[in-house]
């Protein structure tokens, strides 16, 4: 379920488009289950289930994260403003898996440490229907994303 707005937004970024085409020939945005699309609309979350615009590396420029299907896998790709690509995840296709944007300064709760915290930079969440959620945060020194599982309280309890 790809909105016209979303398609045109991508078409307007030829550098990104060609970078993606080169690395993931024939890629398509991952399909989104109608229930998830409806739920996003209801909550007015401000991003798409398969496309997030944010400044992940805090350089003042807009980056993208996309959930695409390429090579038979559903992949999450971060496309940085400088044109570099970072593949963050590759999983079997599932239209109930969606992206979440955590804005810089947003409050969240770390159930592994049982502590509230605020995001230091725009960060990306990947929510699976049948698996523990994962959050990707940019590490400036390493110039790449670091991932960590972000379970709910019960799952965190289990891992202790």
């Amino acid at each position, binding site marked *: 379920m790809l909105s016209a707005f979303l398609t045109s937004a991508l078409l307007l970024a030829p550098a990104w488009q060609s970078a993606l085409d080169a690395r993931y020939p024939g890629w398509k945005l991952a399909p989104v*289950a109608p*229930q*998830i699309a409806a*739920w996003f609309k*209801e*909550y007015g979350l401000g991003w798409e289930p398969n496309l997030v615009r944010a400044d992940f590396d805090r350089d003042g420029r807009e980056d993208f994260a996309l959930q695409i299907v390429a090579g038979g896998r559903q992949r999450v790709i971060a496309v940085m403003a400088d044109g570099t690509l970072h593949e963050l995840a590759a999983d079997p296709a599932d239209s*109930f*898996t*969606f992206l*979440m944007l955590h804005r810089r300064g947003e409050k969240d*709760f*770390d*159930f592994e*440490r*049982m*502590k*509230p915290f605020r995001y230091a930079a725009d960060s990306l*969440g990947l*929510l*699976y*229907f*049948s*698996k*523990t*959620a994962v959050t990707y945060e940019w590490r400036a020194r390493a110039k790449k994303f670091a991932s960590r599982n*972000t*379970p*709910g*309280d*019960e*799952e965190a*309890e*289990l891992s202790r």
Partner: protein
Amino acid sequence: MTRRALFALLTTAAALYGDWLTFGGDPQRSGFQRRENYITQSNVSTLRLEWKMKLDNQPKELTSLTVPVIAATMTLPGGFKDYVVVAGSSDALFAIDPDTQKLYWSRKFEAEGAAKGRPDWLCPAGLNATPVIDKRNRTVYVITSDGKLRGVNLLNGEDRFPPTPFVPPFSKNWSLNLVDDVIYTTVSQGCNGAKSAVYAMDVKDPKRPVTSFLSTTTGGAGIWGRAGAAIGFNGRVYAETGDGPYDPPNGKYADTFLGLNARDLKLVDYYTPANRAWITRKDLDMGCISPVVFQFKGKEIVAGGGKEGVLYLLDGSALGGEDKRTPLYRSNLITNEQVDFAGRGFWGVMSTYEDSEGTRWLFAPAWGPPASSAPKFPITYGETPNGSIMAFKIEEVNGKIQPVAAWNSVNMSVPEPVIISNGMVFALSNGENISQVDNEGRLLTTKFRADNPAGNAVLYALDAKTGKVLYSSGKAIPGWTHFSGLAMANGRIYVVTHDSTIYAFSVPD
């Protein structure tokens, strides 16, 4: 006799005498007191505290007395008597004569063994499940903290059979249900290492066989709606689970409505919301509420919700459709716009009845204010920052069954599940401090929460059609209560508080 006929008999038997034999008054957890002959809309304004009684029970963390259950109008040599039965967290059981305010009898059970680890408010290691009364056999069933089912004579408190292992010792288990000589309960929170599950025991079989359905093979997926499991008119056992791993092929059913066979508890159906990942990630457990079951236009409807603040109506014969992700109806966000995991959303159990004009009503205990996306309530009584009872009419709109907002009550801090009777809704604002963590994210202690309640418990009588306050107990109940509810029979409404006190409200003769 067909099973349907048997269920009809079981539900109408309670109606004949105004009994309140189980949490919510019936196996479906409707909260509807069908036969109340004394308290009416015309005299409810004269309701007053008739008596109170401090019981010999020690609270365990936030847990204290269970909601009472009542065998009404028992025919005894001395005349007709009501038996009000309430259990206590320190493995106590009391039977009270509400007319004399004296104990018929009391029991202090010796629990076998001890819980591993230190108790806390999530795992109090005490008696927690509301008992159930088998009036026909004059037996009260209760689970003591060691996980054993006790069956005692309603009239004298003597054991009917030896304590029988039922659920894991020192697990946290929830209100008992009884249908067709099978006792049901649910387990949550992983207390003392117990996995979350629904349990059943056939008490008619001398061997008292136990069956179970684990909602997870690891942990989480707790079933902690205080009414435990609801039993449908079709005999199916319904429960809602909380956060945890989700992997149905491997037996993990977090944040899901379960539909189980009666007695053997085989999984026959389930429904998981499409946004389950969000619910789990944000700690918006659906297990904080028990489902309620009612019939509407020839369908068996299962209604529930959870901390997310969304209301679900499911078809009891096909909970989640073919893909297990399609409900009959899912509301927009009605409450908990803040996505707060501690004390927002729908908690406890919703209540329901069909009024004399054939309108089906659903009353939902909402913790926190309505969301901006909530349907507009035509009748309101000011802001409800702490919580309220939200009333809906169930209607068929364009061929679809859905709730239609009717009224939102006065502010309550926070509401317990309601009782409906004689065109009135009886609600309890429990006065509990529902904060779970401090600003640093540390879990608040029981002592802090107990020493800093939000207020005192307040009993309300509301007009069922409009939500207008017809009575408020004000400061008559100085204490507060946790995860409780109300009971009502023969002209009295019962409230329990954390300090192990039971209150009876009635209208003057």
